């Protein structure tokens, strides 16, 4: 009783007015100055758009178009399958030329089904209304539907379908957290978005507030983002907005990680296998928030995103408003192409991004940065040396793991021990590997071990299944055998218990003798189909009979 009363009279919320720290992390050089200071340019309409059916976590979308179809900008071309999925729209007008497997942004150079559109350069909508939609009459469900139909997923990199996240909070939402901390070096797309479209971001936040009814709302930015902060504050002031706060967090990698950011702002830890919603918090990337604004106010699905194109391998580093499906090569060309000594092409930042061998891949909803670097900027890693257990990795691990022990177990394929040391709490941020004096590619080892465990689990599941089937078969055979034995026993018993009535026994014996006799007679009957035989055939048969006769006699 007292407890429920307490929950009713609880003060509105903890004020969230101080900052906390998480264990470890790194201060990294920003490398963002150039791109954060230059305006976002449009990357235009490329000749071809490649739209992977899966740009999100969950089930791939299902194509609704056929090769040869004409599509308009914003037209739904693939629908969501199940709850955990997202829709896909044509990001420009043109003709569908193929639906086939193409290389997609993935560390392994994976091929995945894509809809390929040859653009007509007209970039036309089927119908477009410029007037801003009034959403004040829309209820929570309608807003959610609008967001779902726009194909919005988490643009920070995870690609979690946004409507699933919005529907996830069962309990009262204490805090809506808008993540504008880029945290990885080089990436400046969110920074630039805030500088140029702060009012739209705030409008997006208001829509989210309407859907989620949070007690508090914070937009988290990093210490270094002065211009973005000014833009936000002036937009908040001009909108007379008091329900949204802007909080600066220190530039320590990986503060931009959802779990770390929540720890910094609230002091709470998201449970290991849980979601922020479990502790009354929902976190949204600022780019996602802008996309929600576009979906609700402009009635425009997610057709483009901002991509930072940077690194010393790029002639003119810049942020680009890029249509989803634009080939990376096109985007690099927009940024003046590669420099002479480019050597590595990264998708994402330098800490968690992955290197790709080829730029013939499309920009997806979750691709936030293209980083091309020379050997001088990021030299090849030196050869790995033995781990000396110095513990520098432990000191920087934001998940409080023991990376040196995880390495030890991953290295010796002791997967049970690795799991026991909470391998799956590793967020692969790369802090450990970047401070390792032995230059061991630790993250690679952890990824490999995770993969092994998943494979093993899968195999175990299938072998469990096979074993179950085998056991079922054995017991079935057993049962049949037993039943037969029982039947025989019953028969036997019937025969022997009726031992007094020898008539029955006699009858049975007689019946058996009769059966044998009949069989013998049948054996004596002449062969069939011998009525209309040619003389040659009759001759052959006679010869055969003779041989048989002869053989029987000699026996």
């Amino acid at each position, binding site marked *: 009783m007292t407890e429920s009363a307490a929950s009713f009279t609880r003060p509105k919320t903890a004020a969230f007015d101080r900052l906390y720290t998480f264990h470890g992390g790194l201060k990294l050089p920003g490398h963002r100055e150039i791109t954060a200071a230059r305006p976002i340019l449009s990357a235009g309409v490329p000749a071809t758009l490649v739209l992977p059916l899966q740009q999100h976590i969950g089930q791939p979308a299902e194509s609704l178009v056929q090769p040869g179809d004409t599509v308009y900008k914003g037209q739904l071309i693939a629908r969501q399958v199940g709850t955990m999925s997202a829709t896909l729209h044509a990001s420009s007008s043109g003709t569908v030329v193929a639906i086939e497997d193409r290389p997609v942004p993935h560390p392994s150079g994976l091929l995945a089904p894509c809809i390929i559109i040859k653009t007509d350069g007209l970039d036309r909508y089927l119908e477009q209304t410029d007037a801003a939609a009034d959403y004040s009459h829309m209820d929570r469900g309608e807003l959610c539907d609008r967001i779902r139909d726009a194909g919005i997923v988490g643009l920070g990199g995870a690609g979690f379908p946004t409507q699933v996240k919005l529907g996830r909070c069962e309990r009262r939402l204490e805090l809506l957290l808008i993540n504008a901390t880029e945290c990885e070096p080089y990436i400046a797309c969110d920074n630039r978005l805030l500088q140029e479209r702060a009012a739209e971001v705030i409008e997006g936040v208001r829509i989210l507030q309407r859907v989620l009814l949070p007690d508090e709302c914070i937009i988290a930015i990093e210490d270094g983002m002065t211009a973005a902060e000014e833009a936000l504050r002036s937009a908040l002031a001009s909108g007379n907005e008091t329900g949204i706060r802007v909080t600066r967090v220190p530039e320590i990698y990986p503060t931009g990680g959802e779990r770390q950011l929540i*720890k910094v702002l609230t002091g709470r830890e998201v449970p290991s296998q849980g979601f922020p919603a479990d502790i009354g918090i929902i976190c949204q990337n600022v780019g996602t928030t802008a996309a929600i604004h576009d979906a609700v106010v402009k009635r425009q699905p997610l057709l483009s995103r901002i991509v930072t194109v940077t690194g010393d391998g790029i002639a003119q580093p810049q942020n680009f408003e890029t249509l989803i499906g634009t080939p990376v090569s096109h985007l690099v060309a927009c940024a003046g192409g590669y420099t002479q000594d480019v050597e590595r092409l990264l998708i994402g930042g330098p800490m968690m991004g992955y290197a790709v061998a080829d730029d013939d891949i499309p920009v997806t909803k979750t691709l936030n940065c293209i980083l091309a670097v020379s050997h001088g900027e990021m030299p090849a890693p030196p050869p790995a040396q033995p781990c000396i257990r110095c513990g520098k990795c432990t000191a920087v691990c*934001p*998940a*409080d793991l023991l990376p040196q022990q995880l390495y030890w177990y991953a290295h010796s394929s002791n997967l049970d021990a690795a799991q026991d040391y909470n391998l799956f709490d590793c967020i692969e941020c790369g802090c450990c590997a970047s401070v390792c004096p032995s230059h061991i590619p630790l993250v690679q080892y952890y990824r490999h071990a995770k993969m092994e465990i998943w494979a093993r689990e899968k195999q175990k599941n299938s072998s469990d299944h096979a074993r179950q089937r085998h056991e079922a078969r054995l017991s079935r055979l057993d049962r049949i055998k037993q039943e037969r034995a029982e039947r025989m026993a019953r028969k036997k018993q019937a025969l022997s218990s009726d031992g007094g009535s020898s008539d029955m026994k006699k009858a049975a014996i007689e019946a058996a003798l009769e059966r044998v006799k009949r069989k013998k007679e049948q054996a004596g009957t002449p062969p069939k189909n011998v009525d209309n035989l040619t003389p040659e055939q009759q001759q052959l048969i006679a010869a055969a009979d003779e041989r048989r006769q002869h053989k029987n006699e000699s026996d």
Partner: protein
Amino acid sequence: MEFKTYSSPHLPVSASVSAMMQRVLLALLPGIACMTWLFGWGIVINILLASLTAVLAEAGVLLLRKRPLAPLSDGSALLSGVLLALALPPLAPWWIPVIGSLFAIVIAKQLYGGLGYNPFNPAMAGYVVLLISFPLELTLWSAPGAQPGFADTLVHVFGGGLPAGQTLDTLTMATPMDGIKTRLGLSETLSEMRGSPLFGSFAGAGWEWINLWFLVGGLWLLQMRVIQWQIPVGMLGGLAFIAFVFYAVNPDIYSTPLFQLFSGAAMLGAFFIATDPVSACTTPRGRLYFGLGIGLLTYIIRTWGGYPDGVAFAVLLMNMAAPTIDHYTRPRVFGHDS
């Protein structure tokens, strides 16, 4: 165009094992200089013999194991040799550092798999073998400040000869820890010994300065983040605590905590030997317990054991306990309850 692919993270690396080892060697220099000033060229000769043997032994085993010679450049064998040499008396014959170093590198390090795989601190394993096998040679400490010249030392180390008119007895002198132990055994009290040449300003004569300079080097290592604070703090804290308890009980037979901290191998052990990451604990809390254990054991062996100093035995004993301590001191993982 084909780009090069590597695994993340992609930022250039900053630290390296060889840089760490170099810094440790650099941090040893003030203490080495002080030892040389007090005990003469024998210290330098020991260091040269032990480190040369260590590097050659490492190279030899790597060749036998058909492994690349690249690990030689990490400086770990060199460091083991130097640390072993710093435990040896300046008038020890040449084969003492050579045998100790051979055992340290060949048996205690390479036979277990080389750098990163040795469960025991190689330098201390080598030292303990010498201590048990050649106890007499390990007492050949000269009196602080009364060191023989370079040529005389060379002659003695390699030929066993002594300068004219000198005997081993006139040249050598018990270390403060050894001397006090002997005289306590003769029922003398510490206050009666106070005036003897065994005592310096606040701890063992000469050794107080050596310890001070190793402390300076150790603090620099801490500041450079080459080592972490848990092991030195644990060890010195443990040593000072137990020393204080017994000193408070009976100051006549138990020396002051300050004496304990600045005598023998206390500072060298706390900052340079116990902090060998390979054979120490690896969890932050485990390291504190590991250091604490070494501090307590050092005091116990010093006070009631058969040897004047106990750092080496304490380190080896705690090396044995390290995996168990690590197992029970795992940090709470982010998002977990306990």
